[in-house]
């Protein structure tokens, strides 16, 4: 670690990693929604399709700070039906009945891995899997023929008009914002001898994805007691990805993204506007115009996280324990501590492997200097407690 920024990147990366969905849970979630999808295709009708959207698709999931800490997995359920042939309420009901039928089918088979409940929400149906620590939010949709091939229309219990969306288009845009992400996807494809298009983003963690995770994480904690004013994840993700300039150092990328995102909040004739990159007519900042306090809350949060990052870099030379204490004030202390523990274990493994070197700026794995010869700390009990 040659610079403070690299050090902070490593420590933040290690902390946010602990909030990542585990590969095991990810596989389990995929297995479950694929089963739902297969069942719906077989029983709902030709052309019913289920695919992931949102942070699960983008690989920017952060474990929620709720007591259960259940991961939200957002899915699109797309029915090949024309807008003229169905109402929003009918679509919602049709998908709901099929999901309830699926739930019954699982129960009839005495399957233990089925969803426990299926509940209606404003826009989606929620299949809960409390034993696994996640739930599937299934969004009933139909194709939006005005925005082929990936545009969709969705229902909203509180709104008369069909709502527009384009999660696949959004994911494509997100991917295009990071050369590193594209390279990692290409590497993964090459390794497995498959097409790049078949490697999902959620298997990869590029700097951009980590930046989004850090921002969402801080925001989630900052608004734990004030969820109404919490900036939506999609707004943060969009602004961060727009401002991202390809940095590969996580700390620097996060700071630059925060500084750069101000440019991408537009004022269109007195209305705040952050367009959906995959559907220009959709304004992610729409609520700011209706609730000015949310606009204020966003910029207060922006100022807060900027201040945390500035504090951290200014604590250079003050001690790892001081850095940890400041980081824990703004991020989850458990995750931060875990990251520091891992750092210690890594330094030890590097020394044992002969990869640790002594530079004039401290211990490092990059500069040329004497290799730290393996040795064994000796002395009194390593955990002396009173």
């Amino acid at each position, binding site marked *: *670690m*040659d*610079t*403070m920024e*690299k*050090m*902070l990147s490593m420590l933040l990366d290690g902390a946010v990693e602990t909030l990542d969905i585990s590969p095991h849970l990810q596989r389990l979630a995929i297995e479950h929604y694929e089963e739902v999808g297969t069942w719906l295709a077989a029983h709902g009708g030709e052309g019913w399709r289920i695919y992931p959207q949102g942070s699960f698709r983008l690989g920017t999931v952060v474990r929620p700070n709720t007591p259960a800490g259940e991961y939200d997995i957002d899915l699109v359920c797309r029915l090949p039906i024309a807008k003229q042939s169905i109402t929003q309420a009918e679509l919602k009901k049709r998908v709901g009945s099929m999901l309830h039928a699926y739930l019954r089918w699982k129960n009839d088979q005495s399957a233990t891995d089925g969803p426990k409940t299926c509940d209606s929400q404003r826009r989606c149906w929620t299949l809960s899997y409390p034993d696994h620590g996640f739930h599937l939010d299934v969004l009933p949709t139909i194709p939006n023929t005005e925005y082929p091939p990936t545009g969709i229309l969705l229902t909203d219990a509180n709104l008369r008009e069909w709502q527009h969306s384009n999660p696949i288009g959004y994911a494509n845009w997100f991917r295009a914002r990071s050369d590193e992400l594209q390279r990692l996807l290409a590497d993964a494809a090459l390794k497995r001898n498959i097409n790049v298009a078949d490697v999902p983003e959620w298997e990869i963690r590029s700097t951009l994805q980590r930046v989004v995770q850090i921002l969402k994480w801080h925001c989630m904690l900052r608004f734990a007691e004030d969820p109404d004013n919490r900036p939506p994840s999609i707004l943060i993700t969009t602004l961060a990805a727009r401002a991202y300039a390809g940095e590969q150092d996580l700390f620097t990328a996060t700071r630059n993204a925060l500084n750069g995102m101000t440019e991408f909040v537009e004022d269109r004739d007195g209305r705040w506007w952050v367009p959906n990159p995959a559907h220009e007519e959709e304004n992610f900042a729409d609520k700011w115009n209706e609730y000015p306090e949310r606009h204020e809350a966003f910029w207060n949060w922006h100022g807060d996280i900027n201040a945390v990052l500035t504090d951290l870099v200014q*604590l*250079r*030379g*003050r*001690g*790892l*324990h001081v*850095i*940890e204490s400041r980081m824990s004030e703004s991020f989850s202390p458990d995750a931060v*501590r875990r990251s*520091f*523990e891992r*750092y*210690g*274990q890594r*330094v*030890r493994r590097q*020394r*044992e492997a002969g990869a*640790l*070197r*002594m530079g*004039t*700026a*401290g*211990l490092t794995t990059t500069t*040329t*200097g*004497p*290799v*730290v*010869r393996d*040795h*064994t*700390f*000796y*002395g*009194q*009990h*390593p*955990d*002396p*407690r*009173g």
Partner: protein
Amino acid sequence: MASTPTRAVNLTRQLVAILAVLPLAMGTVRTGQLICTLHLQPSPASQTYTVRLAYRHGQRPRVTVTGPPLILHPGAAALPHVYAGDELCLYYPGQWNDGMWLAATVVPWTAEWLLHYELWLVTGTWSGGGETHLSPRAGIRQGATPLPPRTRDPAAALQHDQSAVELAAYGATPEVMGDHRR
């Protein structure tokens, strides 16, 4: 004074080798003792510690932190891996001998100790690995000097050669150091 092992590295050369790694170190060799003050910052986030290294042939190098004062993890009664007087315990008896370069062993081990010390302040657990002192019955008293071996076996000789190679990587072979001697 105890006789010096034939392959022991000359104290001035030890000092020059330390200066090659840490140009800001200050030291003297007087009456058969090397005393050196080092400034070590194990990572960019870490504090810069002032460390005193005192060493005489035939004795173990004694490393103490003179500033800033070392503190304890809340709930801990003592520092981990220290001898009496908070002298740092850096290696298992037998892992160091007079034929080795301090600059390639004890100095980076100290930096490493300091890094794990700061992490210990965070976690309360020593992440650097290591052994605890043997009980007095096993022959080594807590706080006592683990005696360095007087005779060098082939493995130790090989270690000495490796040290020379490692130092050569930054231009501080014993030959080069001879030219630098003031």
